[in-house]
């Protein structure tokens, strides 16, 4: 008998002993429905957990409670009307939802927005990222019992929302992006105001880093919890900060040539090798800082010129198919637009980030404790509208 055989036999014996022990100690399990009405899911997501004591044996997210049928609804609307619908998908960063669809339509029409519109688009895109992720940073504390950061987050997000309202007229649903450019130019004084707000947001990031990320309890709750290795993350189709936190250096803003202005600014894509909850939160914090930097730099580089190219009064998109995806606050968001040359799209397939991001939930929740379920869900960061569309 070789050494490996002996090792194998002893391994089998130990497994059998474990199994006997488990049978003896087995207790009746309990199925816990986290949601659809539950404070942790900030929306109507339901997670079915089978528990053994406080340990999750099996978990499955059940979504669709807020399905609004946007893919179908787009088919009965004209191209310019679609933005009104789709900026409600990820309602915290709504301008960012409009951009990939408009880019897809522009790609089909073979036009491009003028340089000024491209830069302003990028600025508004990053502002909606800041508005979105700053709320995540505050909400993170609430999920772990620290109630103060969320109030700071709401206060400072308000500055950003005021900016978005100042430029577009809508706090939550700007509906500002047009095929061929933007609806309007920036209002007077907006650029100076934005500079001040970006400084405030940088301070907000510092405050959150002190309040939460430096806290021992926060670290002990998040470090080593909910680890997603890079391979698993890729297999489940994670994107955005969730993927970068697993150490995959992948950012569509940098890796893709789009008629946007990200390449004009000097910024960095942050990754983290750990892949745990802490890494995901930390990457998002750094991302907010980078977004502030991008906005600050682009404010100096807004070229003169029109914000709208020549487009026909009645927009008919030529026949064809186009796929455009961008790096949205939650991850990769893309639209596959099929046009038959009519006023409206023939078919739109929406690839939203959160839907793919929660697909890893059954894998990552197996074997964790109930309190960690909340931490992991919070760190995966999904928006219900983005899951259910």
């Amino acid at each position, binding site marked *: 008998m070789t050494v490996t055989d002996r090792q194998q036999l002893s391994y089998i014996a130990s497994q059998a002993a474990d199994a006997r022990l488990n049978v003896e100690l087995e207790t009746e399990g*309990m199925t*816990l429905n*986290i949601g659809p009405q*539950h*404070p*942790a899911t900030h929306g109507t997501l339901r997670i079915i957990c089978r528990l053994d004591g*406080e340990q999750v044996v099996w978990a499955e997210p059940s979504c669709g409670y807020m399905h609004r049928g946007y893919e179908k609804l787009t088919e009965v609307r004209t191209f310019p009307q679609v933005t009104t619908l789709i900026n409600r998908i990820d309602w915290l960063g709504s301008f960012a939802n409009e951009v990939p669809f408009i880019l897809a339509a522009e790609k089909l029409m073979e036009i491009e927005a003028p340089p000024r519109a491209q830069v302003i688009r990028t600025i508004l895109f990053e502002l909606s990222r800041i508005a979105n992720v700053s709320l995540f940073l505050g909400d993170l*504390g*609430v*999920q*772990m*019992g*620290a*109630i*103060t950061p969320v*109030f*700071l987050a709401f*206060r400072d997000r308000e500055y950003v929302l005021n900016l978005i309202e100042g430029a577009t007229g809508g706090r939550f649903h700007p509906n500002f992006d047009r095929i061929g450019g933007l609806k309007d130019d920036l209002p007077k004084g907006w650029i100076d105001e934005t500079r001040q707000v970006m400084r405030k947001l940088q301070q907000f990031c510092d405050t959150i880093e002190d*309040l*939460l990320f430096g*806290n021992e*309890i*926060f670290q*002990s*709750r998040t470090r080593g919890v909910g680890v997603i290795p890079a391979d698993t993350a890729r297999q489940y189709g994670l994107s955005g900060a969730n993927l970068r936190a697993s150490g995959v250096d992948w950012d569509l803003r940098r890796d893709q040539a789009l008629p946007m202005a990200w390449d004009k600014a000097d910024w960095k894509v942050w990754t983290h090798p750990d892949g745990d909850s802490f890494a995901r939160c930390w990457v998002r914090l750094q991302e907010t800082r980078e977004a502030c930097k991008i906005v600050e730099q682009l404010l100096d580089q807004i070229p003169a010129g029109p914000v709208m190219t020549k487009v026909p009064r009645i927009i008919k998109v030529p026949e064809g198919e186009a796929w455009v995806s961008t790096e949205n606050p939650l991850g990769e968001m893309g639209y596959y637009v099929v046009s038959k040359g009519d006023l409206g799209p023939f078919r739109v397939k929406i690839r939203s980030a959160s839907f793919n991001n929660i697909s890893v939930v059954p894998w990552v929740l197996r074997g964790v*404790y*109930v*309190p*960690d*379920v*909340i931490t992991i869900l919070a760190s995966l960061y999904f928006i219900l509208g983005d899951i259910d569309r």
Partner: protein
Amino acid sequence: MGALAIEVPYWGQSLLRVLGGVVAVLLPAGAIVYLFLFKMMSFMQSRLGPMEAGPYGSLQLVAEVGKWMQKEDLAPDHADRSIFRIAPLVVLTSTFLLVVIVPFGPEAYFTNFATGIFFGLAVASVSVIGILVAGWASANKYSLLGGLRAAGQLIAYELPMVLAVIGVVIQAGSMNMQQIVVVQNTESIFGIDWLGNPFIITQFVGFLIFMIAVQAELTQAPFDMPIAESELVSGYMTEYSGFRFLIFFIAEFATAGVFAFIASVLFLGGWAVPFSWFGWDSLADVPGWMNLVGPLIMFSKMLLLTFVIMWVRFSYPRFREDQLQTFAWKILIPLALANTAITAIMTVVF
């Protein structure tokens, strides 16, 4: 009662004490503490807090009590009705039994047990029963998890609390709360007697352990795993509404106040000022007006300690269940044991 110059029979004295205590001390104390804490919390979170009810929101508590009293008294279908209804009262009873031992002045106390602090620690653990049956009787999975977590946590943190108190008892040489106050205000630290000997200085480790254990006993952040509103909805209180929820709520705040009272008796010198300031030698020398000033002194110390309790509560995220058990059994209890041993040795040596 010689200082008051009116002869009252014993039952009358008891009744006066209870009524005076509840009306003059507990109710205004509760209202002011509530307002103070909510305003403090609001300013920490860059908001104004309650502003509508009364000037500057001062009648917020009245408004909320009014709201809760109007609500329907609901119980889930499968709940164990009678136990479900009794549970909040058990928790509140624990609070009221606890306030009994607190002395507010030389004669201003409810009772003066010879083993006051022993009684206090015993009745403090009655609330565990209320919380556990509340969680069990609700017939709700979240409540059950919350109740079980609470039971585990409260039992784990009672031990360091008792051990921290033992240090004080060794130093004072008595379990009587009045005697603990007197000792702190008559003794001296290494010959310096203008401050008396508040045990917070000599028993600083004990004070820290006691305050941490209090935080856990109150199930407040960072030890609020039993309530954990983001995961267990509201823990053992999930199914409660109306005035039964109000009772839980009052018990939570009142217990915070009462534990702050007890901590100020044990560690901050209680109701008295150092006796050397006025040339008193013993408890018999303390004049009657201290019965009025004493409650004010206690009240300010209580506000200070509840401020600390709530400050921690509003600032920290919560421990996971296994982490807080580890913290109790592997850090706090050995530390408290060491503190007790060192106190005993020092008492023998000096």
